[in-house]
């Protein structure tokens, strides 16, 4: 038994030495920037149940890099290293560790969802690498327990804002007094939006008649929707992700629940229309970061460029925010005049009035941008710009 035991320790020892050997000899990548390129690591959901977001962000970012790298920043080009976290939080952590220690990136970009971004925050803070999330909207990403995560920034607005905008829209424009809330129990994003909505809606004098939850990846919502129907709501707030939202909207209409339904930017994916069908989506609304139908010149220029590169597809909010993040980063690097992560972090903090597709960006003291939100309505499966709300 002891012999066996020693042989096991031998094996352990052997394999560690082996790995240490590999580690020492193959320090990949070298420094964060070897004069010609600035390495940026993107820890995104490229597969898994919110793959649509990660891929959209990557597309937008790549489109921006086409222009940025034409001249480069002081002669240096941005090199994007993409990594897939499979829409899973533990993977997001491991991927971030790999990007920072193996690929030695100067800046981390990602993820699309709040949960997966939260999994990276500690890695960024511990390694003193700036982390910019294009679309994670949960406030805890930048400020947790009253403490600022000073290396973390975001390009989008935060959940409390979205939820409030939706509540005011429901009360003022749709004139409803009784609302039901249905959230994705596995998403920090959905929970954040719902609680903000509830607070604001109650302030307008409205009443929440029903609060239900579902599990991600579920396919049958008839029972829960029937329960909601029984409470006679005039409006349903559904701040989830497109895969379940599509099914929920479809099944809601199937059981005769035809009241207006509203959600947030999590709805924004071409797959939503495919799953729900255009008919079911009539009389639904979302708050979003931007709209491709907004007549603003800067937005239309971006739309044209995007369509040219990506087969005439119209860019969604995730594309736009990916694009904006690249420009945010490029602007910061230029002002920092260096590729040192510390200097980039300082330059990011000082970003003021930067003109981006999704609005004019200035960071507040919590590293959150002060920006406006758009409200869109679905008509025959297409997003139609309804109104813009400023903070």
């Amino acid at each position, binding site marked *: 038994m002891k012999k066996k035991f020693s042989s096991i320790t031998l094996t352990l020892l052997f394999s560690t030495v082996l790995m240490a050997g590999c580690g020492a000899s193959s320090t990949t990548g070298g420094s964060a920037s070897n004069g010609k390129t600035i390495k940026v690591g993107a820890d995104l959901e490229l*597969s898994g149940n919110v793959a649509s977001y990660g891929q959209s962000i990557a597309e937008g970012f790549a489109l921006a890099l086409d222009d940025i790298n034409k001249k480069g920043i002081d002669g240096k080009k941005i090199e994007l290293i993409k990594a897939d976290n499979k829409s899973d939080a533990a993977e997001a952590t491991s991927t971030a560790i790999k990007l920072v220690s193996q690929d030695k990136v100067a800046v981390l970009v990602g993820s699309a969802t709040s949960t997966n971004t939260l999994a990276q925050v500690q890695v960024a803070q511990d390694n003193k690498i700036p982390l910019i999330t294009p679309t994670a909207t949960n406030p805890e990403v930048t400020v947790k327990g009253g403490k600022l995560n000073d290396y973390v920034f975001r390009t989008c607005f935060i959940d409390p804002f979205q939820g409030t905008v939706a509540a005011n829209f429901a009360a003022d424009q749709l004139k409803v007094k009784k609302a039901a809330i249905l959230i994705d129990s596995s998403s920090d994003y959905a929970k954040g939006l719902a609680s903000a909505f509830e607070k604001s809606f109650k302030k307008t004098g409205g009443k929440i008649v029903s609060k239900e*939850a579902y*599990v991600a990846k579920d396919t049958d919502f008839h029972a829960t929707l029937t*329960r909601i129907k029984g409470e006679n709501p005039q409006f349903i707030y559904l701040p989830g992700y497109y895969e379940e939202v599509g099914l929920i909207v479809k099944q809601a209409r199937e059981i005769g629940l035809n009241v207006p339904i509203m959600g947030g930017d999590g709805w924004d994916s071409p*797959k939503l229309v495919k799953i729900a069908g255009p008919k079911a989506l009539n009389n639904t609304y979302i708050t979003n970061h931007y709209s491709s139908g907004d007549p603003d010149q800067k937005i239309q220029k971006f739309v044209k460029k995007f369509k040219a590169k990506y087969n005439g597809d119209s860019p969604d909010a995730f594309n736009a925010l990916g694009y904006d993040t690249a420009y945010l980063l490029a602007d910061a690097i230029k002002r920092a005049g260096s590729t040192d992560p510390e200097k980039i972090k300082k330059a990011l903090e000082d970003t003021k009035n930067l003109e981006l597709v999704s609005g004019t960006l200035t960071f507040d003291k919590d590293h959150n941008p002060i920006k406006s939100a758009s409200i869109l309505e679905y008509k025959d499966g297409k997003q139609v710009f309804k109104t813009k709300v400023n903070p």
Partner: protein
Amino acid sequence: MEFVQQLVNGISLGSIYALLALGYTMVYGIVKLINFAHGDVFMVGAFIGFYSVTVFHFSFFPALLLAMAVCAVFGVLIERIAYKPLRNATRIAALITAIGVSLFIEYGTIYLRGAQPEAYPSNVLPEKNINIFGVTINSQSLLILFTSIVLMIVLQFIVHRTKVGKAMRAVSYDAEAARLMGISVDRTISATFAIGSALAGAAGVIFGIYYTKIDPLMGIIPGLKAFVAAVLGGIGIIPGAMVGGLLLGVIESLVSAMGFSLWRDGAAFIVLILLLIFRPSGLFGKNVREKV
């Protein structure tokens, strides 16, 4: 009112479980194997149906028949390649192989086409909301229930009125004796797998139409629940599987109806544990003592 609506929801869900449970129970009755891969045959059926509707523009029945045919062949293939060589091995070995086959089909599918879900077009079956006494029933649910019942009746016919069915019943009773009587045990087992898999394929197409979204990992949870349904009705007993499936669907809907929708999947497993502890032979099964 709401209760009746939930009941309707439950029966629609349950008929899909019933179709799957039938395959499990038939296979277990004849080779005493829990075919973990059954849920994945269901998934393959859903995808075959999807591609026949979108790429080849089949209508409902041809798509259904094609899915059933392909799944039948697929099921026999699995049996021949992975299960037949292990017929005399220990149960653990067979179970591990079944798990391996299941994982292989799932991740093989992901490898070939990616993990992204697909959405069944909504015009395969007419979609109309029918209102009866304040209960809104979707015409799709009715058609699904109807199709499931027809398939189950066809199965009963095969099992009790044809030679193949007689052979199946004989082999599940006593394989050695059946062999002595001149029945080809191998062929009978293959036929069982074929029929069970065809039903799974049909369930897949039906699921796709009713729930729209299909993805490569969709078969895992319905597969496990269908197994619970089969045990609920008495494993190896065909009418038991049907009843078990419907009952499980209703139980799930009621759990959701009472507000515990996050526990829905757990309900099936809790039912399973209770069954195994208190009545392992299921609703219609007979208690068989283990002989030394």
